[in-house]
């Protein structure tokens, strides 16, 4: 029963994606929605990404300095480790988990409310492919904006690390040497590729839960929670797979 339920849900998800990825009926309307979604899902998330990344960068730097750094290790260890954590995991995977909470619940509740207030029915009656009209701009909008968020997150993390350095935890020069030590540019690309995959998961899974809401406001809340939980789980699974594939 349990397996049948999940296979059915997966089938419905694929069906919805099939309807979503169709040529937009009016390119002018699609572009308008696309720009709006980039702003709503991407630009509006910059603040929280910068804030969290700044503090995490600072905290990682302090933790590494206090707990790992010793006279037996090179002075650049703190900067090097901070960079690797930020670039390889935090700015892609962990930030996308945070965005699954913010953006995922936003998408699921917006589409879910449109479902229960018959706005989606109104689109269908007009002859509009509601899945494509509502979901495609969200998926593409988030996938477009996520690389910028990753780069902003890495930069904010480094600024946080420098803030601790200037506060006296370590010298800014040691930090700079560490941040530049054995730098592999591919790791940044890897982070961006992973985040684009996670953006697809967040937007599509949350849209699926919102689109299939039945009932009232209680069910919209439930769909919103399910969207966050499911997209977070899928991000974690996908992270293992993608890390192995891209490393």
């Amino acid at each position, binding site marked *: 029963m349990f397996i049948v339920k999940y296979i059915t849900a997966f089938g419905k998800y694929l069906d919805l994606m099939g309807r979503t990825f169709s040529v937009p009926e009016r390119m002018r309307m699609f572009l308008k929605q696309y720009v709006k979604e980039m702003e709503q899902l991407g630009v509006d998330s910059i603040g929280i990404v910068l804030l969290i990344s700044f503090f995490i960068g600072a905290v990682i730097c302090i933790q590494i300095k206090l707990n790992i750094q010793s006279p037996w290790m090179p002075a650049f260890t703190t900067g090097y480790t901070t960079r690797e954590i930020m670039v390889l995991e935090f700015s892609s995977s962990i930030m996308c988990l945070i965005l699954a909470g913010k953006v995922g619940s936003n998408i699921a509740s917006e589409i879910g409310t449109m479902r229960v207030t018959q706005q989606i029915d109104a689109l269908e009656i007009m*002859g*509009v492919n509601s899945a494509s009209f509502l979901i495609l701009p969200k998926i593409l909008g988030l996938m477009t904006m996520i690389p910028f968020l990753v780069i902003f997150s890495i930069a904010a993390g480094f600024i946080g690390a420098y803030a601790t350095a200037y506060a006296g935890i370590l010298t800014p020069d040691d930090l700079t040497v560490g941040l530049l030590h054995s730098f592999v540019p591919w790791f940044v690309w890897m982070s961006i590729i992973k985040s684009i995959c996670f953006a697809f998961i967040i937007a599509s899974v949350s849209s699926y839960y919102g689109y299939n809401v039945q009932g009232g406001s209680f069910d919209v809340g439930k769909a919103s929670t399910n969207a966050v939980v499911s997209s977070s789980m899928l991000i974690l699974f996908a992270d293992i797979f993608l890390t192995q594939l891209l490393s």
Partner: protein
Amino acid sequence: MIEIKHLYKSFEDKDVLKDINATFEDGKTNLIIGQSGSGKTVLMKNIVGLFEPTKGEILYDGRDFVRMSKRERVMLRREMGMIFQSAALFDSMTVLENVMFPLDMFSDMNEADRIRRAEFCLDRVNLQGAGQKMPGEISGGMQKRVAIARAIALNPKYLFCDEPNSGLDPKTSLVIDELIHSITHEYQMTTIMNTHDMNSVMGIGENIIYIHEGTLGWTGTKDEIMTSTNEKLNSFIFASDLFKKIKEANTEPHG
């Protein structure tokens, strides 16, 4: 004209609609009436294609909606306008953008013409100057009028209204009824309205279909209701004391 022939609709084991036959004529306000749970909303959703019938035919001027291809359905839907019980306005758009939406999606007009057409539709429902307001800033009656303006923006051939008076005061309900009635005559549309508001039935019911427990209970006009001997219909229509008195006054011999 919309014709329904031997329409059945079941949900798992439950038969909700059983052998419905009906004709909805052009230029008339056709009403579907019945108690809550009788199947009138399911019937409406079958007609507009939000549900698939289990069996039967739905003919739009002879075109079989049930057996149409997806593409043909999309094209036919552009000839439909619908007013929902909740108005179903897009709450992220202004009133003017809501009315312009079908024009933006399906017309080849330039922007100035689309704005002019949307403003004309808003004028037609007496909502001049409300274009820049958001749906959340206007009353329920005004929202219904915006929904009517949006429904007529593309000059539809078929207008569907699902309990448009739900949640409105009697005076505003009359305004909405009159608006739907006059627009139907003005544009010679086939209008189907789902209601259990007896004021609507007596006011604008030119062709009435009574659904009772999923079957066709009665058909006729508002004048024929007064003289109907159908017990089920009478127990539904004349449930309130007011309507009982109206019936008595109409059936008493005049001396």
